[in-house]
């Protein structure tokens, strides 16, 4: 039981397809929990909509000696709205087991029977459920007595031994005895490395509306017709306003830019989940009236405003999140957790709008929606397209900094940092912070620098070029540490792009960097009056397949300053576990070079 917080003794999901609008899901789940962390894997819950489809639900708690401690019947389960407190209103609910453990270990035997009428959402099989959990047995079973057309997709089945006991119209997959393991730094998402079985009915229903999952074109057409179409009517007064607003704009981009600005100034994001299974956008009419909506409502509203000015744009379903998760292009099924807007232009380069943000610049995606497959929903049908990618050369953070040292090691700095690409997204919010919060932010970011006092903090946000500039004047204490008559000057004034790594961990998984980054620094240290440069470390550079690093250190002509040029590039990529040793060697070398120091000393005679 090494590494295990819990053991899934048995996970048996059985689906019986009774009709295209009725799939009965039988779940048996037996989990032994060893500690508090293991409670995450109890997973005794069932989602449902207003029309309750939970036929049976029961849980039995058994203690370490095998005695039954407590029994929960359906009415004993906690029943709450399926969305958190950030949501104004939602009609999806979840019924879950709320058990207060007294002693560990204990075992939860959970059984449920759920009648699913919204057959567009069906249980998929992800037998390896997480980290620090062992799996003794996981079974996925599907009975299809009437031989409804359906499709499967097996992913990563080669990684472990999965038994396939399927016979005609009765499918059964089984996985047994997989030991728990810990999460390893930088490893790819479980979804990408562990087995999964995707499954869908060719014909499905959602809230009584029938559809087909034959292919993305077909499914997208269904989404368009049932969720998006006819949602784009607007009040005449708004159309007139937008017409005036965009009257001088000629290109698609100019019009879209003005309309996006209008949306940002006149709406805000409020989560309201209702309509068809939480998948139907609020009408443009209502969003116009209320001035708020969720991602679906606001995207649809922007689309409607664009359409009123003759600009065609597309409702696009995507997985939002820092980790690049794709809409599976090869398997048609309801997917995604977010909606953005796609606008093709005259010159073939698409524009992308994140309509839930009042602050994101026009056509900036950042790491929430970049570089991944998404489903574009059009009147003609669905289409899988890939969103914009930010290359290593796009993701630049560049510092230009003059540092005046005094004889106590204190300093005055004039600092400029320019952030572009993905790093832009990490920084542009700074301009909305109060002065106090900004001081806190920099004091925390540069925790190594002591007693920071800020004389001036200014920003320039170029929202067209997507470039954010921070311009600071500040002072601090003891940058250079005294050592008798000398001062040790750390040459990496502000450490950018540090990669923290854990030591002594056995590596079994590949590692991945989803985005490349470029860090460029120029530090110019002016040494105090009466001091001379006593020792400078040599320049150096390292290159590897993971990235590049170079540092060049020189004294200025009159020996009054130390000039440091530093470049760190981290490449995007995925590497097998065997390469991890090489990667840590690269990082160790970079860290060593990041810690270089110069020595300055009082001149003999001063």
């Amino acid at each position, binding site marked *: 039981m090494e590494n295990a917080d819990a053991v899934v003794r048995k996970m048996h999901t059985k689906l019986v397809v009774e009709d295209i609008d009725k799939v009965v899901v039988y779940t048996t789940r037996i989990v032994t929990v060893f500690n508090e962390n293991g409670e995450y894997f109890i997973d005794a819950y069932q989602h449902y909509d207003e029309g309750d489809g939970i036929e049976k639900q029961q849980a039995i708690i058994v203690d370490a000696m095998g005695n039954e401690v407590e029994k929960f019947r359906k009415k004993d389960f906690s029943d709450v709205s399926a969305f958190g407190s950030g949501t104004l209103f939602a009609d999806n609910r979840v019924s879950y087991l709320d058990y207060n453990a007294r002693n560990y270990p204990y075992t939860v035997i959970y059984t449920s029977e759920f009648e699913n009428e919204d057959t567009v959402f069906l249980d998929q099989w992800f037998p390896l459920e997480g980290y620090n959990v062992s799996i003794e047995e996981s079974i996925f079973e599907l009975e299809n007595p009437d031989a409804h057309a359906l499709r499967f997709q097996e992913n990563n089945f080669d990684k472990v031994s999965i038994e396939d006991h399927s016979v005609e119209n009765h499918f059964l997959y089984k996985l047994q005895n997989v030991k728990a393991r810990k999460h390893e730094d930088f490893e790819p998402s479980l979804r990408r490395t562990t087995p999964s079985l995707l499954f869908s009915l060719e014909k499905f229903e959602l809230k009584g509306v029938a559809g087909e999952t034959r292919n993305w074109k077909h499914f997208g057409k269904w989404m368009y017709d049932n969720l998006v179409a006819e949602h784009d009517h607007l009040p005449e007064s708004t159309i007139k306003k937008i017409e005036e607003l965009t009257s001088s704009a000629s290109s698609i981009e100019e019009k879209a830019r003005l309309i996006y600005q209008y949306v940002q100034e*006149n709406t805000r994001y409020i989560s309201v989940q209702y309509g068809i299974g939480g998948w139907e956008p609020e009408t443009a009419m209502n969003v116009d009236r209320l001035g708020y909506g969720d991602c679906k409502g606001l995207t649809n509203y922007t689309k409607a405003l664009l359409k009123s000015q003759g600009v065609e744009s597309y409702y696009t379903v995507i997985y939002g999140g820092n980790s690049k998760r794709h809409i599976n292009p090869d398997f048609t099924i309801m997917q995604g957790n977010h909606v953005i807007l796609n606008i093709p232009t005259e010159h073939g380069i698409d524009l992308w709008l994140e309509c839930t943000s009042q602050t994101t610049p026009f056509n900036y995606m950042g790491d929430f929606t970049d570089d991944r497959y998404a489903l574009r929903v059009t009147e003609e049908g669905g289409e899988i397209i890939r969103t914009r990618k930010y290359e290593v050369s796009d993701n630049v953070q560049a510092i230009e900094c003059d540092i005046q040292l005094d004889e106590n090691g204190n300093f005055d700095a004039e600092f400029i940092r320019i952030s572009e690409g993905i790093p832009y997204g990490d920084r542009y919010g700074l301009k909305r912070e109060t002065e106090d919060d900004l001081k*806190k932010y920099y004091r925390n970011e540069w925790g190594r620098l*002591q007693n920071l*006092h800020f004389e001036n903090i200014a920003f320039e946000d170029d929202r067209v070029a997507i470039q954010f500039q921070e311009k600071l004047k500040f002072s601090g204490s003891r940058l250079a540490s005294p050592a008798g008559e000398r001062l040790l000057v750390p040459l990496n004034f502000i450490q950018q792009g540090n990669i923290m*790594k854990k030591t002594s961990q056995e590596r079994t998984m590949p590692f991945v960097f989803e985005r490349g980054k470029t860090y460029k620094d120029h530090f110019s240290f002016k040494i105090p009056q009466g001091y001379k440069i006593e020792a400078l470390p040599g320049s150096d550079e390292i290159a590897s397949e993971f990235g590049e690093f170079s540092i060049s250190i020189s004294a200025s002509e009159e020996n009054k300053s130390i000039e440091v040029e530093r470049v760190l590039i981290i490449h995007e990529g995925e590497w097998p576990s065997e390469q991890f040793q090489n990667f840590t060697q690269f990082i160790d070398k970079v860290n060593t070079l990041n810690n270089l120091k110069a020595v300055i000393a009082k001149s003999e005679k001063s």
Partner: protein
Amino acid sequence: MTKYLFILSFLILSSTTYAQNYKFGKVSKSEVAQKQHDKDPDANAAILYKYQRTYYDYKQNTGFFVVTEYHERIKIYNKDGFDWATHHISAYKGGYEENVSGVRGVSYNLENGKVEETKLDRKDIYENEASKYRELTTFTMPAVKEGTVIEYEYKKISDRITTSMDRINLQYTIPIDKLNISVTIPEYLNFGVYNNPKAAFYAKINQGTKPFKRSFSNNQRNSSYGGKVVSHSTSNSVLDYMQNTYEIDQEDIPALKTESHVDYMENYAAFLDWELKFTKFPNSPIDNYSQTWEGVSKSIYNDSGFNTELHNQRFFDDDIDALLGTLTNQEQKMNKIFNFVKQKMTWNDYVGYIAENGLRDAYEEGIGNTGDINLLLVSMLKYANIDANPVLVSTVSNGTPLFPTKNGFNYLIAAAKIGDKVILMDASDPLAIPGELPKRARNWQGRLIREDGTSEWVNLQPLYFSENKTRLNVQLAEDGISGKYFNNLDALYARNFRLNHGNLSDATANLESASSNYSISEVKIENFEQLGEGIHNTYEFNTQSGQDVIGDKIYVKPMLFDVTSENPFKAETRTLPIYFDFPMKKHHQVNMLIPEGYEVESLPQSAMVHLKDAAGEFKYLVKHSNNVIRIDSEVNLAQTIFAATDYEYIQKFYDNIIKKQNESIVLKKISADGLEERADSGR
């Protein structure tokens, strides 16, 4: 003279500028046009007007009920203020009923120089059942943008009239420009009203009186014993009494700003609390509610069933007999029982001094609130002939009560007297040992109550030092540093270590990865699971990058990875008191072996810094003999609460620590003719 005139004209000017109309719907164009708050330009939003009117009314059949009307006008300056457009109104359901009605809202925006109104539609107001006892009415205002002014009002009617009045909040994280509170209470109910003494803002309360008069016509049915109606009669009656009024009419309440090292932020906001002192209804005697802490304690003891609970020992007596066997030592018995309760009982996360489930049920189920668990502990200790009593406590989030009231307590712990020592215990905390309390229970003071009804205050703050001692044996070489790390943690340091790391294997893993520049191996943690024992950590470390070799010299910071490099007090100013968890001593000793072929070029100098009134001290001692450098760094803090005015000293104190600990040792290569050179430098 000119100065005087200037002030005068300024006053006149400002009074005209601020002539506002606060009636619902009368939002001015200048309010909508305002771009930022004139006194707090950083504010994301501001409450332009907060109105609350509470009064008692009377219905013939049901009697008194309480009506509260709310009206707020809020200005939203920027996108970060949008959250102020969403509101949740909570209404209690259960023992009494609260009803929310008349919700009305309007958003105001400037469109082409004109104020445009957007009404909150009824269908955009949601009602949710938040829990068994609470119903939430939720709405977010329509048409909200930067600059929008929103306004909403509603009414809450409660059929609960006696004993308590809800707290009235007077300060938020955004400024309030105008505050208008009015509370009217019938003379029959006599309340005291208190400002929060910890808040920087005190409301000025104007008190007065006002008559209430209403006539009713009574349609009375007189019935006989058998319940049969025998006659009807109509009579007129007049309700005529005086009311006490409390009014607050104030301007410019500043926003509450958060700071670090604070016990609980909300305890510093301005608010009003109400104490019912007595009731005097017509034709009835005075009913005294005003209390002393002695009285509160006694009534809790009597009303909350402590006496009965503590005397029913039959359900556990066999278990305790078996547990204790022939033990006679009081302290050993206490420890056994404490561990027994801790092991047997799981805390259900509910606080309270009342045994919610009853001791017997709680014991059988193995689960309960703090009242269940710690009363059970007291009962068992008593059974074992230990002088034990319950202690009432107010948790950190419950704050410090402003007057004697049952609500001033919300938690219970146990106290045992052994010899002349009083030992406090909380068995709801799995990591605690006798004498240690979890942070939630370390607030203000506790009230110990005895069976005979007497009670006294007891101190809850730890007065003893908790120690954190580290020894680093360091071997320095040109190409790296290696060594051994020894660390001893006792008392609350040990407790925090257990709390932060959860379990032994996580603790080991966390220590292994504690530093990114050092590889750490052979981690041994002793006593992690032995609560009450000090924790000993040892490991070996090595690195290639802990020292700087430049030219013929080696530079190294002696405390290596264990150096304090950041000042926890970064802000320039401070308005709230500074809290430390407990009195502490932190000691580091470094023994560094000078590598072969090197000699000391320079060493940091020894130093000592004191805080006033022996509140704390920092010692840094440097010794050098033969080929060993020894450094002792000691930080002691005896005092745990400092006034905001002491901030600068605390900040400087930490700054001195950091400065000293970050000074480098410089070693120099002994040249081939080293002997001569040394003789040379010895002049």
